């Protein structure tokens, strides 16, 4: 009776898990599948298969330029987030100062404020800066990089602080007692130990910046759109498998990044 009960619980649990995984994976599979349809207008079932949509996606300058703009913006944003996030994480984890909790909340806030709200707030702020100083920020790549750095920063801080908290402070003292100066301790001991957190933080910062639509939509210039905005613009007038091809390339890119990262720093250890 009890054995049968635990067996049925196990089957139910497995079925539920499979349903959840299916719910996540099936749409992705469909997008990839759909990108090979030869139907002129996206419909079901497929009439045949072709690679034309990939050629077309590459041929459209909006997508090609958008891809490179997104890539460049996200890479710079990730580097900015790393340069700001690493010292910030140290201050938040190791420091004991008044208002630490508040600073932490403020640094994490871009993660919880809706992108549309954050984006429009930045846009208004940039306009006011321009109004007061005559310095144009909105619609320039600087404005875009600032916005994407804000997207990247909380991810970086979240993952770096997590790995920093798990560092046994005694190992740094042990290194000191063995003759290492503070800077040597940092580069030889602390940094290598939190490396998985740094890599995972950079990865998630990059991905979340790369896939952002809401914040960017306010801040791009007329002739420089990110890949996600190019997708939305395209969808407004077209409904064919080109978007499937673009999406598939992105899924592949992110999958490869995740696999490479996991190879060099076990991601499960960073959380």
């Amino acid at each position, binding site marked *: 009776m009890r054995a049968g009960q635990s067996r049925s619980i196990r089957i139910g649990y497995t079925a539920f898990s499979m349903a959840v995984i299916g719910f996540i994976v099936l749409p992705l599979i469909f997008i990839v599948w759909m990108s090979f349809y030869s139907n002129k207008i996206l419909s079901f079932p497929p009439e045949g298969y072709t690679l034309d949509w990939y050629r077309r996606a590459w041929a459209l300058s909006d997508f090609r330029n958008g891809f490179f703009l997104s890539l460049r913006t996200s890479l710079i944003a990730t580097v900015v987030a790393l340069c700001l996030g690493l010292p910030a994480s140290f201050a938040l984890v190791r420091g004991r100062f008044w208002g630490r909790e508040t600073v932490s909340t403020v640094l994490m806030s871009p993660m919880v404020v809706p992108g549309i709200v954050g984006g429009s707030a930045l846009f208004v702020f940039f306009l006011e800066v321009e109004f007061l100083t005559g310095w144009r920020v909105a619609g320039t790549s600087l404005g875009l990089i600032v916005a994407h750095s804000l997207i990247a920063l909380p991810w970086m801080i979240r993952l770096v602080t997590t790995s920093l908290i798990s560092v046994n402070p005694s190992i740094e003292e042990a290194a000191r007692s*063995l003759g290492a100066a503070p800077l*040597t301790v940092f580069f030889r001991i602390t940094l290598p*130990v939190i490396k998985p957190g740094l890599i995972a933080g950079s990865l998630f910062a990059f991905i979340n910046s790369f896939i952002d639509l809401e914040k960017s939509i306010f801040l791009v210039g007329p002739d420089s759109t990110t890949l996600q905005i190019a997708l939305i613009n395209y969808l407004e007038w077209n409904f064919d498998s080109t978007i499937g091809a673009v999406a598939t390339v992105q899924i592949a890119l992110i999958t490869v990044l995740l696999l490479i990262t996991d190879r060099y720093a076990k991601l499960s250890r960073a959380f």
Partner: protein
Amino acid sequence: MPDVVLQDVAKHYGPAVAVANMSLRIGDGELVALLGPSGCGKTTTLRMIGGFVETTSGCITVGGRDVTALPPNRRNMGFVFQNYALFPHMTVAQNVAFGLEMRGVNRSDTDRKVREALVRVRLAQYADRLPRQLSGGQQQRVALARALVIEPDVLLLDEPLSNLDASLRQEMKIEIRQLQQSLGLTTIFVTHDQDEAMSTADRMVLMYNGKVEQVGPPDEVYGAPRSVFAAGFLGIPNLLPGQMLPGQQGFRLEAGPVLRLSGQAAVAGRCFLALRPEVISIHAAPPSDAENCLAGRVEIMTYHGSAVEYQLRTDIGLTLTARAVAPGLGGPALLPEGSRAWLSWPATAGVTVSEN
């Protein structure tokens, strides 16, 4: 090996006093245990010697050299941490080599010294493992090898055995003592376990509330605790309140009777007679020639293999603990719980300790 001298060393955290004016000399090649309950200041003292905690006042010298203001990396001390603190991203050999590398020792000397250090702690075959692939005891030995390979002036050990299980602890205790003896290392060892301190140290420093309660060789401190705290902490359960009788060799218990007591310095006012359980004999019938005797009923009998411990409720209302040799080893027959028994001890057995 140099000696370590603490002169009026104190540590205050705001109004809280962690260590109050402590003066102590640890001799060349001596193993001293800092012993006390948690919060007594023993770890703070060790960390001040290691340079991880700044002193509020006072001065620390090693072999005559003032190190009070030196950072830990310039003190040349080996520190072994309670949680071993091995570098998780380095192999055992890399861990041990780290200190040599910091000293700019060349490659071939480093390799040789690391190998020797690992042989010394019997871990030569584990050189290429990562710390997480080792057991607790092995990690502890790596930590020891890493601290010793730099040929430190002083070895500092912070509760080095508390994360090990009982049998391993016994083994490591002996191993640490042997290493310390063979290298003639000046060693300071922090522990909360009086048994650990007594079995390893040349001298014990018993601390309480940031102050030194008593310093001396283990047998001296255990044999003659100077305060109720010291007696209690060293595991002497029998502390009988009373007063020494003026001019006479006697001790009046608050519970009434006068006990015979000899060879004690006079203590004025209320004090305690500390009786170690080993000095009390237990009898099934009233003994004929005892200098001190109290009757009572066995409340708890605990069998330990080689010894039997009895807790008795005496007729005068005091609870006493006696430890007898087990029956098979020449001790008296077992007395079951609830049976009537008599406790006796010689006049020379007790030690009077002041109230605080």
